[in-house]
């Protein structure tokens, strides 16, 4: 065994870095082992389209990150050219909606207000360990009671409404409220993005609330872009922890944890080197953590069943195009191309896409969210060129026929759609890079290639995340913790799992 650390963190994603930062501030000697040659994990410019700023509760606990974030508007594209641009600023949005969806204006703001209240209520619960379900502990019951109380304190009407909506599908709610299909399409898109739900699947609404909780409790107001992209944020986090004395080993794949007598004793690297520590935190996804790093011989049968049934198949692919000039979109200013553009014109369009993905097929007309960030930030590519980040919703893990055969078809479908909105865009393309959920699994060691290390659904949230009996960043093995997106409150560029995990660890060491 080589030299001793207080804590070893497996994986160098943003949650791992946030966690390391907080531990290092408490003078813990921390080592981060990252399998790839750079830190960041799924938080990389290759995958992320937008980078919301950390919330104040996370920021106040870590060292300062001097990155400028700018707000981004969301534009739902329409084939007719009547695009719908929403910014999250009430005055502007009111004007836009009065023009394009005059009947929906009042109801839009009413819904936004209601959802915002609910997301805030849920969000208030995100910053501490969720209560344990399988233990009979008073403080756990108290926490559960407090969540119930918070929900009840919204008032009787809101409480009833919350109870009605928590298992609801987003399509029903939107069709009840709005006439404008483009508006319905845009909100539905945000409710199902990254998930394995369609707009008519029960529970798609809570997915939207979760997203809002990570975006300033706003439908469209909290979407941001960081100068230099997410890579810049990671770089800054990395610099900060290194300054604090955290050691980072990149290209260091961790093969397994060393367990003696139900207590973690360190890790073994891919090259056979052993590193000792009595506390190990895994930022890997739950399945990798339990099945690969820990080993099933340390787990009970029922526990293994729960982990195995944890739903974690990714449904989003990423296409990055390099363009030799700025493409022309019908009825869009070139400056608007750096905003968030969404092709998801109606609920039915999404639901049809979902049907293809349900049976592990590709949709001929996919749902796209894209942006050309290099218009604002020329540090992102070479001079004279531009990059276009495209996110393809419902491009399933393990697509029928295999991604090696289906990749070209998928790219062709994307480009055919884009041609409709931006004729001639194909001729601007000088390079393309495609990442399927299977590529994410292989290249980033995330089982299933899911963005959030597991579905954000009611049975996999809060005290059920990742699974009942291991939801407090702890594992059944002493000294082994988890801090990734698979833990409460879940994925997204929030740093909250990393922060909460650090506190849980500090309670015990």
């Amino acid at each position, binding site marked *: 065994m080589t030299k001793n650390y207080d804590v070893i963190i497996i994986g160098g994603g943003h949650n791992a870095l946030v966690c390391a930062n907080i531990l290092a501030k408490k003078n813990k000697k921390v080592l981060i082992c990252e399998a790839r040659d750079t830190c960041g994990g799924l938080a990389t410019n290759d995958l992320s389209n937008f980078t919301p700023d950390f919330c104040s509760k996370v920021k106040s606990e870590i060292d300062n990150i001097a990155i400028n974030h700018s707000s981004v508007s969301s534009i739902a594209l329409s084939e007719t050219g009547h695009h719908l641009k929403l910014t999250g600023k009430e005055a502007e949005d009111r004007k836009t909606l009065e023009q394009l969806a005059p009947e929906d204006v009042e109801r839009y703001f009413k819904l936004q207000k209601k959802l915002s209240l609910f997301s805030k209520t849920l969000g208030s619960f995100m910053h501490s360990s969720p209560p344990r379900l399988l233990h009979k502990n008073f403080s756990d019951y108290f926490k559960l009671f407090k969540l119930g109380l918070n929900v009840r304190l919204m008032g009787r009407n809101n409480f009833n409404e919350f109870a009605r909506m928590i298992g609801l599908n987003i399509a029903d709610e939107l069709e009840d409220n709005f006439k404008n299909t483009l508006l319905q399409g845009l909100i539905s898109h945000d409710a199902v993005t990254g998930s394995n739900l369609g707009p008519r699947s029960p529970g798609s609404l809570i997915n939207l609330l979760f997203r809002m909780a990570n975006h300033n409790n706003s439908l469209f107001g909290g979407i941001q872009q960081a100068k230099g992209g997410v890579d810049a944020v990671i770089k800054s986090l990395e610099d900060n922890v290194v300054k604090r004395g955290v050691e980072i080993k990149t290209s260091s794949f961790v093969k397994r944890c060393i367990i003696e*007598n*139900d207590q973690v004793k360190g890790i073994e690297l891919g090259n056979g080197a052993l590193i000792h520590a009595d506390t190990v935190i895994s930022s890997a996804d739950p399945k990798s953590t339990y*099945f690969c790093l820990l*080993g*099933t*011989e*340390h*787990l*009970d*049968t*029922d*526990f*293994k*069943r729960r982990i*195995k049934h944890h739903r974690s198949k990714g449904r989003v692919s990423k296409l990055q195009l390099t363009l030799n000039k700025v493409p022309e979109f019908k009825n869009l200013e070139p400056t608007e191309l750096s905003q968030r553009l969404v092709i998801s014109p109606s609920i039915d369009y999404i639901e049809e896409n979902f049907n293809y993905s349900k049976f592990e097929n590709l949709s001929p007309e996919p749902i796209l969210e894209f942006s050309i960030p290099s218009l604002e930030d020329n540090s992102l590519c070479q001079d004279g060129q531009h990059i276009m980040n495209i996110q393809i919703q419902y491009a399933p893990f393990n697509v029928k026929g295999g991604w090696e055969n289906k990749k070209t078809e998928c790219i062709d479908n994307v480009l055919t759609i884009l041609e409709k909105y931006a004729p001639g865009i194909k001729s601007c393309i000088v390079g393309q890079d495609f990442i399927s959920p299977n590529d994410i699994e292989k290249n980033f060691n995330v089982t299933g290639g899911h963005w959030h290390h597991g579905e954000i659904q009611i049975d996999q949230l809060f005290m059920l995340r990742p699974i009942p*009996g291991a939801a407090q960043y702890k594992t*059944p093995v002493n000294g082994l913790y988890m801090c990734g997106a698979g833990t409460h409150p879940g994925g997204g560029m929030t740093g909250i799992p990393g922060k909460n995990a650090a506190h849980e660890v500090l309670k015990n060491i």
Partner: protein
Amino acid sequence: MNKDLTQAALKFSPFHNRTSRACRTNSWYRWSGYTVVAEYSTTELEYTATRNGTSVMDLTPMYKYEIKGERAKEFINYFVTRDLSNMDNNTVAYVIWCNEEGKVVDDGTVFCLNQNEFKLCCAVKMQTWLKDSADGFDIEISDVTDDIAALSVQGPTSCSVLKNYGATDLELLKPFESKDFIIDGYNVLISRTGFTGDLGYELWTNPENAENMWDSLMESGKHLKIRPMGMHALEMVRIEAGFIQTSTDFVSTEHALRPVRMRSPYEIGMGWLVHLNKESYFIGKRALKEEKENGTTERILVGLDIEGDKPAHGAVIYNKKKEDVGIVTAALWSPTLKRNIAIASLMRPYGSKIKEDIFVEIYHPEELEYKKIWATCKIVKRQFYNPERRNLVPAELY
């Protein structure tokens, strides 16, 4: 309606041609999807054969699983609570296994055929539980229940019967050991194991040899008081021996409808099979350790010696304040011991710390009327019957 009897809903064991001919009462018992004899002639005679001669019982319906692979031993040791890390080839171990809450799934026997090949015999269907437990072990698990014909040959003269049958030097086989034999040209595995608390063996072979084996055994035991035994007599001898029976003395976690009905090993007298100091993890270890450290065990399984001669079937147990403190799970007037015995589940501290002033309320049916008997009882070791010959090596010969 014309019903084809060969399409019976229950399976016939490979011994069926012989057992059905020997069964003079047409009294059958349903066991794990098979039909087996409940009583051949009279239960008392069959019981007496086990205690004074040799009884032969069809064991085929018992669930049997084969566990193979390089990590098979590691898996078995992880699967059961007992420490089997030093288990030798050709030995057998009595084991229990638990779920994550440390509640008993089932009990059974593990046969170590070699270090990479084990056989597990048990009362409850275990395929899914085994497969899910083996997740990550890369081993092969197969249900071989229908592929192995098994007989239990038990009683004081059983060793002599089997020697006549062709099992050379069998008397040297120690309890919980097994040995391969070739008899009449076929393979038989004989283990010195059983469910009667007496000297006895179990025979395992391919189903095609079943009828030959039955015939040779009956021939070999002709002058040694051999007799086939049905399930009713088995119930008598197993209570005398103090063996627990799944679904009678405890409910398997796989069958319990109410979580509170699940039992930890400490609650059913199986604490001696829980090796918390085992080096590696086993299923339920964390929960069992917690239970042991915190002393949260709620019940205890004890033996009762009850006054009088009326068996206390299903009787409720009371303390001196007439508060309900437990229930009898199995009861018998023991013909050999001449004692009124029972196995009972009590709420601690009754049975553990408080052993005095325990009463049972027996409802004894007497020609359409119940006679209510308030009987005192003593708490005793569950192993009521344990003759010296059971463990003697070399085994007694006649």
